[in-house]
């Protein structure tokens, strides 16, 4: 009897002991697989921030694989990530970053200032020449402190280094890259981001797995599979069938179907690509576009709300400026209302009572239905324009060479601030600019030499106001997409980061 009781007590003690020692169910362990249906072919070149082309597309995956010193997050456009904090010297020539001490790369290496310096020096993507020109040297103060010495004060430094405009601030491990070489890195990239690459089938799919030692927090999802499906209808079919949880870019009737389906949610992305009408011939005194009233008429002729509804199911906010509101130093401008009567009146006043033939309207491919719709509105007030279809590379080429006739349905989706957009599209030396406004050129030159930020802002806003006053463009909207998300997702990450087109931050993505 006594032996039995002792045995019994012993067993109870053992069980209790085991319960205490046994690990509590880890509430933070990543679980589940999320499948994406992506609308573009994912290129291995995007695994390496050193080659970033300045477009937003590589970030579809870079936010998962890599991390940056400073990057846009839900908290703000310049959220310190790999850096704890940063300071600029009073003379604006030295920037110091204090790095976090607990950042571990996918291969286990600890991040130090060496990696930051290395990543900057190997950067050769968009804006590399500019950065290398302005930065004299990068010095390592201690393993977690790095300083950038500029040749002269350059207030835009953070705009380029600390934003997706360049990839120089996205950090890769020096030892690993030196060991495997450039090509090796592209095939087996290692970064500091919340997910690491497991496998890649070029043009087909990419498989990612959670990096449990990610410094910010352990990702909530264990695996992410990104499948390339270029056909929109097929992406929708995958969502409906349950083969995908997130489908990018379900616009037009696809988005309407997502809305109707009780198992799916229509979620809008962020975005900073502004779309506008550009009048290539406005400097030609013989062209109708030379008249301010005619350009103004084009502005009144467009029903921007209907366009946003038709193309993007209302996701795209309307705008009266070609510079996104969210950009630093941007002047928020409301669009002109839809008033075709006023447009016709303005045309009559300018001397074109029955309208005129504007030739062609060329959109950036493949936005042809958008151009058709715009052409329809212009046609309704008498401005006749035929949609010209051009192959993508051909169109880009002609745009650079300023060979596009008629109207261009143009856009600019690059990161930056008001300065970069004005530089590209408004000053007469701009890569895509068709304007030849001496006053604007003068103001722009002044602001580039202006040290006082307040005065600078005033100058930049004057430039933008002048553009609006003279109706140099007919801005339409800031493109954002509707995307399809399965109700099985608790947090899809869509639209969390302002101005970002894709899902992020990846560590927040969660299944129900």
């Amino acid at each position, binding site marked *: 009897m006594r032996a039995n009781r002792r045995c019994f007590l012993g067993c109870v003690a053992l069980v209790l002991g085991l319960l205490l020692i046994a690990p509590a169910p880890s509430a933070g362990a990543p679980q589940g697989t999320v499948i994406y249906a992506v609308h573009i*072919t994912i*290129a*291995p*070149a995007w695994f390496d921030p050193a080659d970033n*082309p*300045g*477009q937003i597309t590589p970030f579809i995956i870079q936010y998962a694989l890599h991390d940056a010193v400073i990057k846009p997050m839900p908290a703000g456009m310049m959220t310190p990530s790999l850096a704890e904090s940063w300071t600029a010297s009073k003379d604006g020539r030295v920037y110091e970053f204090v790095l976090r001490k607990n950042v571990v790369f996918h291969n286990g290496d600890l991040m130090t200032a060496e990696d930051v310096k290395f990543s900057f020096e190997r950067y*050769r993507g*968009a804006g*590399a*020449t500019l950065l290398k020109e302005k930065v004299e040297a990068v010095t390592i103060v201690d393993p977690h402190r790095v300083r950038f010495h500029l040749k002269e004060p350059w207030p835009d430094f953070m705009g380029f280094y600390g934003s997706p405009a360049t990839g120089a601030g996205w950090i890769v491990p020096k030892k690993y890259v030196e060991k495997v070489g450039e*090509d090796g890195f*592209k*095939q087996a990239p290692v970064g500091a981001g919340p997910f690491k690459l497991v496998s890649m*089938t*070029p*043009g*087909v799919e990419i498989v990612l797995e959670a990096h449990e030692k990610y410094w910010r927090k352990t990702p909530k999802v264990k695996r992410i599979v990104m*499948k*390339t*499906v*270029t*056909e929109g*209808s*097929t992406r929708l*079919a*995958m969502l*409906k*069938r349950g*083969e995908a949880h997130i489908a990018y870019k379900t616009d037009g009737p696809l988005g309407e179907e997502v809305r109707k389906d009780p198992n799916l949610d229509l979620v809008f992305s962020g975005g900073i690509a502004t779309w506008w009408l550009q009048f290539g011939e406005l400097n030609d005194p013989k062209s109708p576009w030379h008249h301010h009233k005619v350009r103004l008429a084009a502005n009144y002729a467009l029903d921007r709300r209907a366009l946003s509804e038709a193309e993007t199911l209302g996701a795209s906010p309307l705008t009266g400026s070609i510079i996104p509101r969210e950009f630093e130093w941007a002047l928020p401008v409301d669009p002109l209302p839809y008033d075709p009567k006023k447009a016709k009146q303005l045309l009559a006043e300018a001397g074109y009572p029955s309208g005129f033939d504007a030739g062609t309207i060329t959109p950036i491919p493949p936005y042809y239905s958008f151009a058709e719709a715009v052409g329809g509105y212009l046609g309704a007030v008498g401005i006749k324009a035929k949609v010209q279809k051009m*192959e*993508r*590379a*051909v169109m*880009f*080429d002609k745009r*650079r060479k300023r060979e596009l006739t008629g109207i261009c349905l143009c856009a*600019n*989706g*690059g990161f930056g601030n008001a300065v*970069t957009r004005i*530089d*590209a*599209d408004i000053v007469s030396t*701009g*890569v*895509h600019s068709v304007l030849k406004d001496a006053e604007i050129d003068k103001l722009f030159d002044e602001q580039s030499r202006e040290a006082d930020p307040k005065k600078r802002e005033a100058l930049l806003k004057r430039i933008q106001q002048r553009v609006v006053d003279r109706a140099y463009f007919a801005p339409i909207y800031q493109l954002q997409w509707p995307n399809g998300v399965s109700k099985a997702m608790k947090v899809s990450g869509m639209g969390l980061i302002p101005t970002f087109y894709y899902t992020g931050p990846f560590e927040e993505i969660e299944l129900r």
Partner: protein
Amino acid sequence: MTRFILKRCGLALVSLFILSVTIFTLIRLTGDPATLLAAPDAKEADLDAIRVRFGLDRSWPVQYVRFVGGALQGDFGTSLYYRIPAGTLYWQRLPASLQLAAAAMTISLVVGLSVGILAAVNVGRWWDSAGKLIALLGLSMPSFWLGLLLIYFFAVYLHWLPTSGRGTAAHLVMPAIALSGYFTAAHMRLTRSSMLDVLGSEYVKLARLKGLPESWVLVKHAFKNALIPVVTLAGINLVLMINVAVVVETVFAWPGIGRLLFEGIEFRDFPVVQTVVLLGGVMVIVANLTVDVLYAWIDPRIRLKS
């Protein structure tokens, strides 16, 4: 015989040379990949840097020599978009294309032949009308439309099959059906008319007069002879099938060569385009060569005549 083979090989090499020069020039005429690889508002200096990096700044003949030199050693250049060797991409995607073409060709032959024979044997009656209907559907429905309808019906509505991608046998069913549409119709029509011809021939009339069972007549004589033109057509159609597969590959996200080539042209990925067209051309030319040699070996008159 050896002379014949050598002569044919020589001609084949000439064809290859013409093909390679043509594709090389054509793709370069279409424009400059640098603009597509950079930001839309990149400065000219950035673009030049890209051109130098990928060897695009040299003159065309120099680029051609480099390419051919590399190709002979098995190096087809590195894809501008994917940054991995173009040859690797090609061999990776080829099995998918071959699998799809084989499946679609099988369907088109099995269905085409059987329905064609049934239609011929039952001329004017129900099977004949059914056959004509199938032929009409196959000839008048574009493959992308058929594909999307199949996805919508069998995947989304009935949940019987997966929507897209490559994986299990179930994934192959709908793309193969969509691709085979036109060819099934073509093979069915040819089988039917071919069978009708043979069934009306003297040999068959004689066999019937002799009192031989109809099934014997059909199987032993009619079927085999009707088969010949269909198989010939199928051989020609195989190349066409692989060419037009790009539409089905797009709809079903099938990772084949057609899609690789199409995107290569879109992205101005010169090495990929050159490699795909060249290797594809090599396969076709080698296949033709083999067939020619086989025919010549079987029938001495052919090699003597030339």
